């Protein structure tokens, strides 16, 4: 058991523990904090895989952005300490069965499948400059068009949010 392995299982248990708590906690604020833990664990996993840049992005966007947004909306729609209703029993049973079956299926599939490398991936190191170049250039392995499409999507989402959520004052 090397340090690498130990770190991985710690991170994995942090992610799964946070996620489980996030979907089961009765207090909504507690669930949000559990989600925060899970997302930080994912950022740590990226860091563990030597993708420091993507780990930073994960932390900034999810932890700093989305979770904060979620907490804001909780405050907008709930009293803090509000307890969520129990799930519908029969649906919960079905859902549990379905999810477990799905997990078991994928698990058995992964066990039987051997993944093949397409090159010396393990020794490949990523520079942040490579990401910038890939996003802002054209040609093979470049993503200028999706980048522009996503920027347009973000604009549209912004306008859409305003349109949906705006309160129209009625006289």
């Amino acid at each position, binding site marked *: 058991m090397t340090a690498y392995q130990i770190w991985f299982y710690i991170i994995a248990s942090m992610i799964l523990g946070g996620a489980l708590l996030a979907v089961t906690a009765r207090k909504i604020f507690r669930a949000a904090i559990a989600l925060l833990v899970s997302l930080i664990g994912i950022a740590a996993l990226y860091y563990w895989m030597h993708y420091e840049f993507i780990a930073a992005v994960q932390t900034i966007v999810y932890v700093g952005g989305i979770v904060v947004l979620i907490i804001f909306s909780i405050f907008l729609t709930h009293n803090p300490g509000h307890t969520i209703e129990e799930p*519908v029993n029969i*649906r919960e049973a*079905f*859902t549990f069965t*379905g*999810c477990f*079956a*799905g997990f078991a*299926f994928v698990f058995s599939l992964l066990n039987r499948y051997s993944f093949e490398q397409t090159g010396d991936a393990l020794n490949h190191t990523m520079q942040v400059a490579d990401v910038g170049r890939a996003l802002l250039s054209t040609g093979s392995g470049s993503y200028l068009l999706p980048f522009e499409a996503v920027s347009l999507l973000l604009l549209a989402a912004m306008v859409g949010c305003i349109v949906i959520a705006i309160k129209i004052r009625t006289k």
Partner: protein
Amino acid sequence: MLNASTLLLIPLLPLLSFLFISFIGKKYLPTLSGTISVLVLSASAILSLAVAYNYFFVVGMTNGFYQAIIPMKLEWLRFSPGVSIDMGIILDPISVMMLVVVTFISLMVHIYSLGYMKGEERFAVYYSFLDLFTFSMLGLVIATNLFQIYFFWELVGVSSYLLIGYYFTKPSAVAAAKKAFIVTRFADLGFLIGILVLSFHSGTLDIQTLIARLTTSDTTFYASATFTGFMGVSSLTWGLALVFIGGAGKSAMFPLHIWLPDAMEGPTPVSALIHAATMVVAGVYLVARLFPIYAISSPHLLELIGYIGIISSALAAIIACTQTDIKRVLAYSTISQIGYMLASLGVSNYGGLNGEGFSASMFHLFTHAFFKALLFLCAGSVIHYVHSNEVRDMGGLRKKMPITHLCFLLACLAIAGIPPLSGFFSKEEILAAAFAHNQTIFYIAWLTAGLTSFYMFRLYFLTFWNRDYVNHHESYEHHSEGSWNMKLPLLILMLGAVGAGFVPFHHLITSDGQPYESEFHLNITLMAVGLSLFAIIIATIFYRKKNNLPDKISSSISQLYDFAYHKFYFDEVYQFVTQTILFNTIGALSSWFDKNIVNGAVNTTAFITEAFSETIKPVQSGKVQGYALAFLFGILGLIAILFFFNF
């Protein structure tokens, strides 16, 4: 002259007029429509007269025969190589004669209606219906194909329905129109089946081919039609009998005559045109058109037709003696005279002097058209003057309406068969033919002729003599006998009624197209004229001055009188059959079936559908997580299928 384009104009002009008035004239030229119609009909009538002249005196006669000319025949609908429905024009003596009669009487009625119908709200509509009728009738008489006859036959029925129901706000008129339509439609069912039977065995619908195939006994068609049969009667006879039922319905023969008296609810000129002179003789025309088949292949059926004709004639004459509605008397008189024509066909054979009955029947059709139209138009003038149909509101009108009086008198003399007026000639020929072939029919016909004279003069005296005229409607005092357009047709028709008998019919229209010389039977003439004069004298004694003699007579034979007065209870019998038997018994049964079985099946289907949808409705719960769960299981199921079957 006898080319297709000229001949087509004769029926098509009224059709164009009908379309014009219906679509344009009714709205924009409501009062001028009548004049337009009259002008169009005049053109049609002039063309018909020219065609008749050309046919009879220029081109029709070849090798001593009047040949049938077919200037046009268009195939309209083909069923099989042999059987097709054609639209065509046939010119032979009877169709040419009918062309003249229809267009001429129609023209007279058109002119007369200008005055009679003046100021009516639906004046233009009236004329459009008249034109539609004229077109249909012309299409019927020139038909080359049995189905073409049927086609126009129904069209004639429709226009008759429309005209009887012209005063559609009057419940009695609506009822009469429905009655006429239903009764004739019922008879037309027989006609249709008859057509199918005949065409099935002969393999054709074309009239000339049909006649050729079913009159020569060595053809396979003839054999197939005579060897198959039903209830001991051959298919050929059945077919002909069914066709005759159609004719009997249109011609108001016993026992399908009940619609004609009620049809008098229509405007009087319509009665003159349709229910006296043209449409009701369609049955006679139909039998005449297929006459060779009747006479050669089924003489017994023809004899039966003769009996039906003469019985209708006698019954109608007896009923006519008791009626007090001027138009109903004339309606029964019409039934009686048409019965005469059919009786005359019934005593005829095919060819030469033996075919005298055929010729006489057509002759009587021709003369009857004139004097009966004249009688109706005179009755119209009288009704126009006194505003009532009942003879008790009339009487003493001869000084008030001199021209109408003269015309009515001459028409009565004509129908009574007093020489030298037209009716004398045609009746004399019918009686001679009957005398030569069937004594029973002859004697009934002879007595009926006497009755005819009696009831016509009863009507004449009750209307124009009997007592001084008392005006029941003060407000109508000052108005006169009628405008020129009502008097002119009367005078023209009077000339026809007087002079039509001098047309040498046995030279022009015979059963086989070959002219023959008729014999003059002095004894029959003396018998007939003597009886007529006797009947007229009795009518004069009874009705010239008001007296109580008729009441005495009628009360002494009160049972027979009541029986005849109630038209031998035919209407009641029909009422019983339709109301009690058809509606209350069979109708109730089928109503039960409809309500419980048919409705039940429909309701059960609806119930099952509703129950099923109620069951599966909760699937659409509106709960988004339920949908997502179904989606998850769907994906899992799909994966399972793909995985376990190793796709």
